[in-house]
């Protein structure tokens, strides 16, 4: 047999294997989840920890027999935080028959809102995207399933009120990244400033957000607020902690939104010692003290592997786990509703809209997703840097729901 014939045979065999494996993938008892992720782009500081959390939870579910007998296959596409790759990813998910997708990034959520609706595939946007998407009637296929920036703003003010006693005549500074996401909560702050009687001043940090000496000096030197709310992304939260500390502002009077709230930010700012007292808003439980995390670690230990390294930033890792858990729960509801038959993406949407009383041992807020409320109630928890780690500071809470509802209604 000539060499070329050998190669030909080899190629044919490889081709047959590829066909066989792809056929094996397309089996009946399988659900496909599409995961948008950013492991290499502008926000890779989040993606490299969040996405492993998602995969690990799905592996855990699969190792226990899957969702009501259905194995879950996660198709992840890295979008580098750019919109065209996210569009491509969505089409790929659609082609592979994904029943739901996990969006990542505000611009991408915006860009895909219409596509999701046309293709009737739901997308979850926890902690980003537009706050108005909480309105399930207006955005039927986008699910924030976590506190929006509006709910986080309300939560921050409620926390400050608890700390300071009364807000009348108090001064609150808002230090934010100057982009649509940073400006979104402004309406809630302004509204609450009126009703609660505090004075609000805003300090915008222009992109890329690593230079805020002037703004912080303005806060600590001139405005001298009783509390500061920060809403920053990427590298800038650590800069804000360092600058505020450096100018002598007490970090116990600072509360950060969800994307400036991870262990990585605290370490980059100079460690727990320096950041002692820093308050953070969370939409998922923090740390390894949850049964599900222990289960994941036990699963890896049984396979002879170590604890996943991504757990070192548990804030993002746990968020990945929570997002995966809510996805699985939606799929479970859908399979149950169909009596065990394979659900369509429409069924999974209805499954997502019936999530209730699912807490994963306190890691997930006691949310209730309904066809009207895709946010699930806007629950948040505050975790504070104390004794060298993030410590839970009070239980899950909702704040100023009537104000949020009023603004949601006003969008229409």
């Amino acid at each position: 047999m000539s060499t070329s014939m050998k190669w030909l045979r080899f190629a044919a065999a490889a081709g047959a294997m590829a066909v066989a494996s792809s056929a094996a993938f397309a089996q009946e008892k399988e659900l496909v989840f599409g995961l948008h992720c950013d492991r290499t782009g502008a926000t890779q500081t989040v993606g490299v920890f969040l996405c492993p959390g998602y995969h690990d939870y799905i592996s855990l579910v699969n190792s226990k027999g899957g969702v009501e007998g259905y194995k879950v296959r996660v198709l992840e596409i890295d979008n580098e935080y750019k919109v065209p790759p996210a569009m491509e990813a969505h089409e790929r998910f659609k082609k592979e028959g994904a029943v739901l997708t996990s969006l990542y990034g505000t611009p991408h959520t915006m860009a895909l809102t219409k596509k999701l609706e046309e293709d009737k595939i739901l997308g979850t946007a926890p902690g980003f995207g537009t706050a108005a998407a909480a309105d399930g009637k207006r955005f039927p296929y986008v699910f924030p399933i976590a506190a929006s920036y509006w709910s986080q703003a309300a939560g921050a003010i409620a926390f400050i009120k608890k700390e300071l006693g009364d807000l009348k005549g108090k001064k609150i500074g808002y230090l934010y990244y100057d982009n649509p996401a940073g400006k979104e909560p402004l309406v809630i702050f302004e509204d609450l400033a009126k009703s609660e009687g505090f004075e609000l001043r805003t300090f915008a940090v222009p992109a890329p957000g690593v230079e805020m000496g002037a703004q912080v000096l303005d806060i600590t030197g001139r405005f001298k607020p009783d509390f500061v709310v920060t809403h920053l992304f990427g590298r800038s939260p650590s800069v804000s902690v360092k600058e505020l500390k450096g100018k002598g502002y007490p970090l116990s009077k600072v509360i950060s939104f969800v994307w400036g709230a991870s262990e990585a930010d605290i370490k980059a700012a100079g460690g727990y010692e320096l950041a002692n007292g820093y308050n953070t808003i969370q939409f998922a439980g923090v740390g390894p003290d949850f049964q599900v995390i222990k289960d994941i670690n036990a699963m890896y230990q049984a396979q002879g592997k170590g604890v996943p390294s991504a757990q070192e930033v548990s804030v993002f890792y746990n968020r990945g786990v929570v997002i995966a858990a809510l996805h699985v729960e939606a799929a479970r509801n859908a399979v149950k509703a169909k009596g065990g038959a394979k659900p369509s993406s429409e069924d999974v949407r209805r499954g997502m809209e019936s999530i209730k009383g699912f807490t994963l041992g306190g890691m997930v807020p006691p949310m209730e997703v309904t066809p009207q409320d895709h946010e699930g109630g806007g629950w948040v928890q505050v975790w504070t840097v104390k004794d060298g780690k993030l410590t839970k500071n009070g239980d899950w809470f909702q704040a100023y729901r009537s104000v949020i509802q009023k603004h949601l209604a006003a969008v229409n």
Partner: protein
Amino acid sequence: MLHRESGVFKTSYAADMALYPLPIARWTVAAFIVLFAVILPLALHDYYLSIINLSLIAVVGALGLNILVGYTGQISVGHAAFMSVGAYTAANLAVRFDLPFWITLPAGGLMAALIGAIVGIPSLRIKGLYLAIATLAGQLIIEWVINHTPAISGGAQASIQVPRPALMGHQIRTQGQLYFFLLFFAALAIVATLNLVRSRIGRAFVAIRDQDIAAEIIGINIYRYKLLAFAISSFYAGVCGVLYTYYLGIANYEQFQIGVSIDYLAMIIIGGLGSVLGSILGAVFVTMLPIMIRLIMEPLAGLFFTAGELSSVVASTRLVLFGALIIFFLVVEPEGLNRLWRNIRNYFRTWPFSY
């Protein structure tokens, strides 16, 4: 394009400048039209069409930038901002005045051309890297203005949802329908550019690029032509932005940030400065190659890694491979893919009797 020209002799300037230098090229072009207009949409799944759609949008933008950078020799890092001008103009017109795409599309282009000409004013006095910084300022100013002007951006989220384009009462919404929509405008842009660069204007642009003082001495009004280059280039950018807006169904300024300008510069440098084919090849290369690398790597890496590890491996390896391939192609041929193609063609010109 693909043919040998032996036996074809030109006897007039008109014949030498013709779009089809050889009679047989008409058939090649016809074959390409059949391939893109009939065979591809019939043969390909919507997913693959969606990748082509992204490339078609990029082709329009890259052609525009190449007119400015490649043909006229003026550096611009504000291309994405001009796209956003087109995008928001069209979105506002489409939403507030309920205008159809065949009005909003040229309107977006014209508005971008106007703003582009204004941003291009510094080019009358400064060149090279200094001009690059001036256009960078243009990019940042336009971004800031859109972000802080609710009248343009439509509120705090700085995004405007636009209805799908409609043609004679039919909405263009599936990837297949959008493919024809985008193909039409990409083809129009290609033909327009081919004609532009062989016209008086195109020659003036090239003269300014090669030696602006000499161009001025032979009677080219360089102020006028430099601004015209900015305006035409920005018109393309604006149209690209409008196409993108209709493709996504939303105008959002975060899709047109500085990184996108850099991406487009990369496209024309990889493809080949000062060539139409280069712009197309570059746009296709930068848009499709990362996707192709992933599609090839997924089954390969799947043999060695679990699903969770796979994503991380593919994401990082893809970035490395993509970068390595850019370096490879630029080292092999610094003048870009267009030149590479011409070298291959010239080699086969006399093959197999190359003596």
